[in-house]
């Protein structure tokens, strides 16, 4: 029994220490920082940190651009996440249907964009959208894809392009795991491919879809690389375009206390949204 205790320490301690140092400590530190504020005696006086209570949070809640950026990523997510996961589901069902030849090829081709880092994907698409550089001049000359009206959806396209294949693979893997016997009854009842997909396959891969949705919600609220890169292609992207960009530019001013408060609010919002989504889908599943 003693050997087991030693082994347990050996297995768990390294991860636990790093997790405490680089996950728990930063969260606690951010919360602490967000409760302080910097005070100066006079304009050029020495800066001192004093306890400020919820002062920073008051500033966060009255910060118009920050809430605009939250609204922007929510709008982005409401449109982009269903489109991306809908496409991923359709592609996965088609791959699984037996109607498609060359499955290995498609699986790989759709997954290749996932190998492109977000920053690099954004740079690449930035070029593709630029009117004088794009190979699609027919499109870019009639629509300004980098204008204030469209640039959010141009970014949505970049994110979709990178992640559809990845989500498709997760859903496809769980389709492959469904035992063949499940389909026999449907076949006997004379259900066609679409009916089988709708009534059997989709309900059975629901857990995979929920998982990918939660990850997508988290990803949407964290949008950073794409807007940061697009700032050099389009003047419509401001330094507070997404919440993360706001955090970054606030910390660059620097106002660390306010930036910490932004981080805390953002982390809470992410957790609340993810949990709320899980709860809603679980209730649906119980019926």
């Amino acid at each position, binding site marked *: 029994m003693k*050997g*087991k205790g030693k*082994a*347990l320490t050996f*297995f*768990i301690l*390294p*991860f*636990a220490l*790093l*997790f405490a140092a*680089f*996950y728990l*400590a*930063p969260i606690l*530190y*951010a919360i602490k*920082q967000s409760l302080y504020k910097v005070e100066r005696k006079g304009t050029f006086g020495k800066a001192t940190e004093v306890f400020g209570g919820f002062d920073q949070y008051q500033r966060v809640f009255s910060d118009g651009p920050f809430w605009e950026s939250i609204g922007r990523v929510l709008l982005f997510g409401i449109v982009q996440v269903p489109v991306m996961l809908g496409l991923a589901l359709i*592609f996965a069902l*088609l791959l699984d249907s037996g109607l*498609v*030849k060359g499955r290995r090829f*498609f699986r790989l*081709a*759709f997954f*290749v*964009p*996932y*190998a*492109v*880092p*977000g*920053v*690099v994907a954004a*740079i*690449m698409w*930035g*070029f593709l959208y630029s009117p004088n*550089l794009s190979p699609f001049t027919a499109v870019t000359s009639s629509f300004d894809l980098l204008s204030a009206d469209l640039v959010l959806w141009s970014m949505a396209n970049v994110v979709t*392009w990178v992640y559809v294949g990845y989500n498709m*693979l*997760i859903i496809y*893997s*769980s389709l*492959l795991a469904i035992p063949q016997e499940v389909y026999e009854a449907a076949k006997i009842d004379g259900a066609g491919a679409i009916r089988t997909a709708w009534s059997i396959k989709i309900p059975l891969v629901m*857990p995979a879809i929920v*998982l990918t949705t*939660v990850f997508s919600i988290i990803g949407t609220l*964290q949008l950073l*690389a794409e807007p*940061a*890169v697009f700032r050099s292609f389009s003047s419509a992207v401001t330094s507070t375009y997404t919440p993360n960009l706001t*955090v*970054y530019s606030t*910390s660059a001013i620097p106002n*660390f206390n306010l930036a*910490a408060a932004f981080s805390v609010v*953002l982390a809470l919002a*992410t957790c609340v949204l*993810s949990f709320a989504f899980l709860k809603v889908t679980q209730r649906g599943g119980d019926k």
Partner: protein
Amino acid sequence: MKRLAPMAVMGAATLYFLIPIWWLLVAASKSRSQFTNTEPLWFADFSLGDNLSELFAYRDGVFLRWMLNSVVYTGGAALLGTLLAAMCGYALAKYRFPGREAIFNIVLSGVLVPATALALPLFLIFSQFQATNTFWSVFLPSLVNPFGVYLARIYATASVPDELLEAARLDGSGEIRTFFTISTKLMFPALVTIFLFHFVAVWNNFLLPLIMLGEEKLFPVTLGLYSWNTQVNQIPELRMLVLTGALVSIVPLVIAFLLLQRFWRNGLGSGAIK
């Protein structure tokens, strides 16, 4: 006839996914003047070699340095991080001890914490130790992978039978030796999956290096390309370097995927189903 519509959908999607990469390959093979004057989706005079040597020579080869940094940051963090996550997940799956569920739940809630919310407080903590702008300030936080622990636990439960561990104990094998000689082999597909997820996450992590690093020599390639791209308006010749560099930066991950893809499909599925 029935296959026609599905194949058409898949074909159109393939074009959507691959044309941008094809364009990048073509663009990186052109000289600066031909880039704007020739057919964007087809090759002109093939100057990829010239572009590459210019890329690698620019500012004393800083781009190669970035690539190397990225490989060390991501490869190192993914290897070590996978090992640590696997050990922890395995212990949570195979041993009963007080506090087991508490540890698991804390780690699991770590999955929901956005990594970007951690970057700024990490910067503040590291700056208290005067350790920002160092290799370790990016490397150490990248080792932690809560999702890896979750996957490792699920997979260890499913693929490492208790009877086998009992048998190993009867044979006098220590717990740690059993883990490294027997359990890791059984968990191998899951380990590959965790490694790949971790690799991609670190490779893509942008905010942490952006906030931590000031010195160009320490940049990963993503941050390097980003900083060049922001200077394109002042230094136009950087444009071809950005394009060529973007192409080069994709290559290692594509190779990693091609080499590892046959291992990770199973693990991916088992993580998603639970």
